[in-house]
């Protein structure tokens, strides 16, 4: 049921991203090569490399030709060369990419699971103090910037309690293999993933809670209770299962937010993903890497959103109103 109309927004968004990436460095005053590569990199260039680069980016050609050159390089997967890492940008990014995905994936899983369980319990006890407590607590958490939560977690669990490692994704030069390596990675992952999940708990919590509240009024819940089923069974098997669906569909909307959040969390925990690349890139004025990461991350977000949008419509046509790409949260019913 894939319709072209659904994907037009994404196509336009993609073009905007390409345009930002292409025009920003070329609109800067002065040497375009300096804007593309950063001043520092230029100092080390020999005249031959310089002319080769100008040729490669077609910088001596009119803008139209330049754009064509840019596009054809992109299609070949060529994102440029980083003089800071002394490596192709695509290689630098592909080293960092899995870590960000691991972090975001874990955080999304945690926040969806914890959020929906808390939401179901909260909705079940609507108006009781547990509900009030969870509701205010989670709304409160949403107000914290991700990096602040990350830093507090880092200090409490890393520095003060000293249970978790402070930085990185694995212990360097430890030579762990197999299970020990996996454990090491998990140990490094816990703090950043939980920090990221904690700030983003609100969405799935509210969705699960709202669906729970409405589901509890349904006739089949009444029937289940009349059958004498235990509370827990009604809560999870009958009502809970139905409140899971909107949570899952919400993941697509959350993805963009999570990836952006991960950029900050990675900076806090020196986690070797794309966020750290951005932070280092900003400090070293490593423009090729910045542009590459920008392109990869935005495209990833676009593709995920598009995929989820198409998927929702396929799974459940009823959901149409709440899957708007505006990311607007479903209203809360207190």
């Amino acid at each position, binding site marked *: 049921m894939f319709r072209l109309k659904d994907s*037009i927004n994404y196509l*336009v968004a993609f073009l905007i991203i390409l345009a930002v990436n292409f025009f920003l460095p070329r609109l800067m005053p002065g040497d375009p090569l300096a804007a593309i590569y950063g001043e520092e990199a230029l100092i080390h260039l020999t005249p031959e490399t310089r002319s080769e680069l100008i040729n490669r980016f077609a910088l001596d050609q009119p803008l139209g030709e330049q754009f064509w050159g840019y596009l054809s390089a992109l299609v070949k997967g060529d994102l440029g060369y980083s003089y800071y890492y002394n490596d192709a940008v695509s290689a630098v990014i592909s080293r960092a990419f899995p870590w960000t995905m691991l972090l975001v994936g874990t955080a999304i899983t945690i926040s969806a699971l914890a959020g929906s369980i808390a939401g179901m319990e909260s909705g079940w006890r609507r108006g009781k103090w547990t509900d009030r407590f969870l509701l205010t607590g989670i709304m409160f958490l949403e107000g914290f*910037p991700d*990096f*602040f939560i990350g830093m*507090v977690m880092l200090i409490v669990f890393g*520095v003060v309690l000293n249970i978790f490692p402070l930085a990185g994704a694995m212990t360097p030069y430890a030579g762990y293999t197999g299970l020990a390596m996996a454990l090491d990675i998990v140990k490094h992952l816990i703090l950043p993933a939980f920090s990221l999940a904690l700030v983003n708990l609100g969405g799935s919590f509210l969705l699960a809670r709202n669906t729970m509240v409405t589901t509890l009024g349904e006739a089949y819940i009444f029937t289940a209770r009349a059958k004498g089923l235990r509370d827990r069974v009604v809560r999870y098997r009958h009502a809970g299962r139905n409140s899971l669906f909107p949570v899952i569909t919400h993941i697509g909307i959350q993805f963009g937010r999570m990836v952006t959040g991960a950029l900050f969390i990675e900076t806090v925990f020196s986690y070797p993903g794309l966020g750290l690349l951005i932070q280092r890139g900003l400090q070293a004025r490593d423009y090729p890497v910045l542009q590459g990461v920008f392109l990869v991350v935005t495209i990833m*977000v676009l593709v995920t959103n598009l995929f989820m949008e198409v998927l929702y419509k396929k799974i459940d046509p009823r959901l149409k109103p709440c899957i708007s*790409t505006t990311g607007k949260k479903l209203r809360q019913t207190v």
Partner: protein
Amino acid sequence: MHINYWQEIKTNSLGRIGMALLVLVVGAALLAPVLAPFDPFAQTPDSLEPPSGLHLLGTNDVGQDILSRLLYGARISFVTAVAVAFAATALSLAAGAAAGLIGGHFEKLVMRLADALLVIPPMLVVIIAAAYIQPGMVHLVLLLSLLGWPAGARIIRAQTLVLKEKIHVRASRTFGAGPLFILKRHIIPDLGPVLTAIFIRGARRAVFMEAGLSFLGVTDPMTVSWGKMLYHSLKYVYLDVWQWWLLPVGMALSLTVMSFTLIGYSLEEAMDPRLRREKHA
């Protein structure tokens, strides 16, 4: 049904907390020169001091008084918030109302653009643009507002479409009122609460994003900003200074964001009949 929004916020406990927090932040921002015991930039030999009677929150590694920096930081957050919210709301109004009133291909074009901008994570665009421009205050405000209008524009367009079919607006059109007159006389006054809600949401986002950007170090290095102070304390996480370097600043930032969230929430509660609690029943 007429709703007195100010009254609603005042009687709503969440709204009251939000207003109180906001007054606190605005007070700190306005009175920073009076309240701050030291020059926030002055570097003194008394570095890395723990809190004392002289330096209530201690000093940082170059001997700057943290309390003074905290107070001055409120200015940056607050000015960014108001400026961005104002500009973004104005853009939303211009785009949304124009799309709603003019219609046709113009409306399609504007809304397509808005929809497309909505699916791009704005923070990333700001980061990449900031990397090139190295924005000062003005550029930062421009950047953030340019990316902040689409969500508001959608809401305003939807409202405009409803409003323009109302009888009094149609009547005024039969008397020959042009779109600008209708906008000024009939649409904008009725949009008041919606615009306020959009404004508050914009302010909240701006505080968040300014903090994030200065945390990454892409804003003007000559300003005192909470995000920058947080990044600074991250570098000294191994020293035992976080209690007064990190927590007060982080809390100030979070409370500012929260004040906007709470006010916005209580406003939304007042506007949405489904969320309104029956008080006079």
